[in-house]
């Protein structure tokens, strides 16, 4: 960032009312934004009768830990999570691989037809997923006969124009001297990519990884259309299904929502610095 602070006039006491006021506003907003999470947790611990009391109790009178066990057992959550896990890893690894290679080629290689292919990428970027949803659905169900599998949830997502553009932009900024030095050393493109470019691109790669993995975890509409059996359903479809089954059991529903949200929140708290900074950086460049 170019600047980190606006100049502060000198000679004034540390705790200005301004700062206090700012914190009040920011905290109030934080409370409002965090409240739905709190409400989810609080309901998850309540008994069914306490949860459906009106006016509701802000804090559970009793803590019913068994709600979590009951919700977990009421639907095949282990299967849903396993499916999502497998899909997310496959998609992330695959997309990274294809995007890195393609981005590198566009950024640092010259080849015939480069312009045309790049134009296709650009045009594709403009096509929203709504337009491709129906044809893809017919393609995978009628033509490829892949419906109700894990593969059908993986294959269409093995490449992303956004990732290609992002990485290409970054690869282009690798100083040419490094490329020349590598050429002098006799290193081919693959070596150069693996040994020099990638290590220099770790922040961007982390961003792409996290964004892709998160997208995979949150996937809903596509799996909804193409899966029929619990054996291959991912967690979001499983959650929606749980809601259809147990929607009136609000305490269980909130417990289930906790399962679905918790993994992402935990990973996020762990990796948040990368994610937020990366998004900010790429957001502006985008």
């Amino acid at each position, binding site marked *: 960032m*170019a*600047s*980190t602070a*606006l*100049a502060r006039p000198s000679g004034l006491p540390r705790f200005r009312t301004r*700062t206090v006021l*700012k914190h009040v506003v*920011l905290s109030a907003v*934080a409370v409002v*934004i965090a409240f*739905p999470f709190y*409400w989810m947790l609080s*309901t998850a611990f309540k008994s069914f009768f306490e*949860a*459906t009391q*009106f*006016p509701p109790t802000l804090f559970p009178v009793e803590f019913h830990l068994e709600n979590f066990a009951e919700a977990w057992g009421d639907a095949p959550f282990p299967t849903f999570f396993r499916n999502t896990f497998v899909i997310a890893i496959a998609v992330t690894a695959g997309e990274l*691989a*294809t995007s890195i*290679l*393609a981005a590198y*080629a566009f950024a640092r*290689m010259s*080849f*015939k037809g*480069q312009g045309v292919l790049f134009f296709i*990428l650009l045009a*594709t970027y*403009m096509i*929203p997923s*709504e*337009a491709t949803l*129906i044809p893809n*659905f*017919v*393609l995978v169900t009628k033509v490829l006969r892949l419906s109700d599998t894990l593969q059908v949830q993986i294959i269409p997502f093995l*490449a992303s*124009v956004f990732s*290609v553009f992002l990485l290409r932009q970054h690869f282009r900024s690798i100083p040419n001297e490094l490329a020349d030095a590598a050429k002098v050393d006799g290193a081919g493109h*693959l070596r150069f990519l693996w040994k020099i470019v990638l290590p220099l691109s770790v922040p961007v790669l982390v961003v792409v990884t996290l964004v892709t993995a*998160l997208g995979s*975890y*949150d996937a*809903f*509409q596509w799996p909804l259309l193409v899966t029929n059996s619990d054996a291959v359903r991912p967690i*979001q479809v499983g*959650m*929606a299904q749980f*809601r259809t089954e147990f929607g009136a059991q*609000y305490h269980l529903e*909130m417990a*289930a929502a906790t399962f*679905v949200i918790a993994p*992402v929140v935990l990973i996020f*708290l762990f990796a*948040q610095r990368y994610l*937020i900074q990366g998004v*900010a950086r790429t*957001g*502006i460049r985008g």
Partner: protein
Amino acid sequence: MTRPAVGATRRRRIVQENILAYAFVLPAIVIILIFQFLPGFAAVYMSLFRWDIVQGPFRGLDNYVTVLTGSRAEEFWQSLSVTFTYTLITVPVEIVVSLILAYLLFQKMRGRGVYRTLYYMPYITSAIAASVIFNWLMNPNYGFFNTVLELVGIGPQRWLDEPRGIFELIGSRFGVALPDWSPFAADSQFHQSIIAGPSLALVGVAIYTIWHFIGFQVVIFLAGLGNISNEYYEAARLDGASERQLFTKITLPLLSPTTFFVATIATIGSLKAFNQIYAMTNGGPLETTKTLGYEIFHVFFQQGRIDLGAAMAVLLTVIILLFTLFQFRVAERRVHYG
């Protein structure tokens, strides 16, 4: 070395590089071609046939006529109007709130990271899980929102089940009957007075959407603010500018590329809204939250009318494209570069 030998080596190297490049590029290109590029055209193809579970005869532009002016026109225009209303009540609010928050957070302060993280949490929460929570918060019988309304003296509302417009609801509180005007005929099921405003259900979905996007936009604005060079501020301060003038004359204009960017992606996101509609209201009540994204799903998946769904999808694509182009054009003139 003699000339021909040099040429041959170089040519071979170029060919090798070409082959290698294609090897690099092909995996991504193939996937993108099959699942993202060609389907765009396939959608147009499908929209030209009768396709009601099974493919039927060629019908030219008949499906578009049906959707735009024929038997499906009402639901199409209704869903378009819902989509636009939804965009209108989410995007400006999101931008204003996140800009203010980013501005407050921007000066060096303690706990900035904590706030930023907290604001960002909704963005990483899946739409399904979050919709379940908001549905519960807005439950007419036991929900927390109605508790708050009670505290401020307003009676319980039906929230996601309420098809009446918010202006109409507010008006009826004060005994004011609003004039009834709608482009749909009086006996049409879509006859909702425009003056009545968006339905309370749509407002409920909008509340979730704003909650979801604020943190993400705060982060982008923070980055944008960081890109404004300090010199401008220092120079202005020397000239005696007040805090407010700094904001309006320097910050806002120099932030416009960021604002424009945020507005674009927020709008496109709203135009495509589906997951939260499915999880919160399923397009109801009385189709007042049925965005075009949901309508397409309803027609092609719930009714099996692939032909009409494809036609609507093509129209939605055109709208998004036109809108993006329009935003670029208009904003380009307005955007001030440093």
